[in-house]
């Protein structure tokens, strides 16, 4: 497969939101991000409704066994190149759910099972502030 350019994704990252078993706290902060108050359209960030249109997957929550195969499937549905943003402590490192019986692993480990070259952005916090998320996304995309 030819190498696809990541140059333009910095300028218009379209995000798709995947909840993978978090406590809903990060999801609400993500929705906060998209309100007129923070106006992410300034950076070209847009919430899309289909993984086919997405450039960035916003994943919140530790990955439970129940959702693991679904997350992998959604990742495969996203046209490459794409970025996976782990929002919150749980998505980054499983947080307080570490060693729980129902949790399959942090987001990066689950996705690396099917694509070892996946690109990750980590935004820790419980939950991260909307400003932090926007800052993280904008900064991380500049470094790709």
């Amino acid at each position, binding site marked *: 497969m030819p190498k696809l350019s990541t140059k333009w994704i910095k*300028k*218009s990252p379209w995000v798709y939101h995947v909840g993978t078993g978090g406590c809903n706290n990060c999801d609400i902060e993500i929705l906060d991000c998209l309100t*007129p108050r923070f106006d992410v*359209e*300034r950076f070209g960030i847009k919430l899309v409704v289909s993984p086919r249109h997405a450039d960035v997957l916003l994943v919140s929550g530790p990955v439970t066994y129940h959702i693991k195969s679904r997350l992998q499937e959604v990742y495969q*549905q996203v*046209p*490459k*190149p794409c970025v996976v943003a782990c929002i919150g402590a749980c998505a980054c490192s499983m947080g307080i759910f570490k060693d729980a019986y129902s949790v399959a692993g942090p987001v990066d480990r689950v996705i690396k099972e099917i694509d070892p070259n996946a690109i990750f952005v980590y935004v820790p916090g419980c939950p991260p502030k909307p400003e932090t998320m926007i800052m993280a996304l904008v900064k991380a995309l500049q470094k790709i």
Partner: protein
Amino acid sequence: MNNLLWYILAFLVFPGLLFTSVFGLVVTWVDRKVSARVQWRAGPPFLQPFYDFFKLWHKELLIPSAGKKAGFLFAPLLGLTATTLLATIIGVTNIDPEFRFVGDVVVIMYLMILPPLSIVWGGFASGNPLSILGASREIKLMLGYELPFIIAVATVLFKVGTFSLGDIIQYQQVNGVLLTQPSMILAFVVALLCLQAKLGQVPFDIAEAECEIMEGPLLEYSGPALGIFKLMQAMLYVVVPWFIISLFWGGTSFHEWGILWSLLKYLVVVVIVVLIKNTNPRIRIDQAMKFFWSWATLLAVVAMILMFLGY
């Protein structure tokens, strides 16, 4: 030979593909910026639609396993070609009203059906249930708005007594713009309502309802194919208002201050569309059909009768 070269240039550069796509993407920015200001936001940077398009161009193109490959890939190209041809015919007629062939308004009306049809085709070829639902809604919407739109256009055709866009523009250069007469104002309002539906803007974005059926027919599209569809929609944003301005508001002039005045006319139409879009909720498909077949058609017929009575 020379003539042929000139036509190819008109198709590809001005007023065809290149001009219309660049202008269309700029207008998309105007749309997003005005929407942002209405919602008390700052809005995207000027080049945002261009970034979006180039990004989509550099993404992977996925073809759904349940879909039909040929139709899925051919549909966006059909829509883009039809829109470019439409832009070329309307643009060349506006530059030189002497350019005409028999019944070009009829050809334009038919070509205007092709972009929605290409979306329908793409939706059905995707093989996704939500895409198919969106495509079937698009067909119903098309059946709805075509009737009043054709009556509104026919009002102008009967008034001027011709089937040629060039003649209509020349008639308005001699006798003043048609929009000063009451019957034409009614027909213009009907055409604006149909414009809203033709562009798929909010009260009538039933086929692409994002939060309901996930952009409907475009759901399975990704990468360059989605980019072409977005470009086609941006170009329609230029072409359909241009056609309506040519019919009712004296067309476009390319002389000195005429360019500014033409641009102003065009921007007025676009800002009306954006304001309607930002102040209305989406309606259901049956409500849209009822609206177009009762009120809009009634208004168009009243305009027609007034025109025959001489108002």
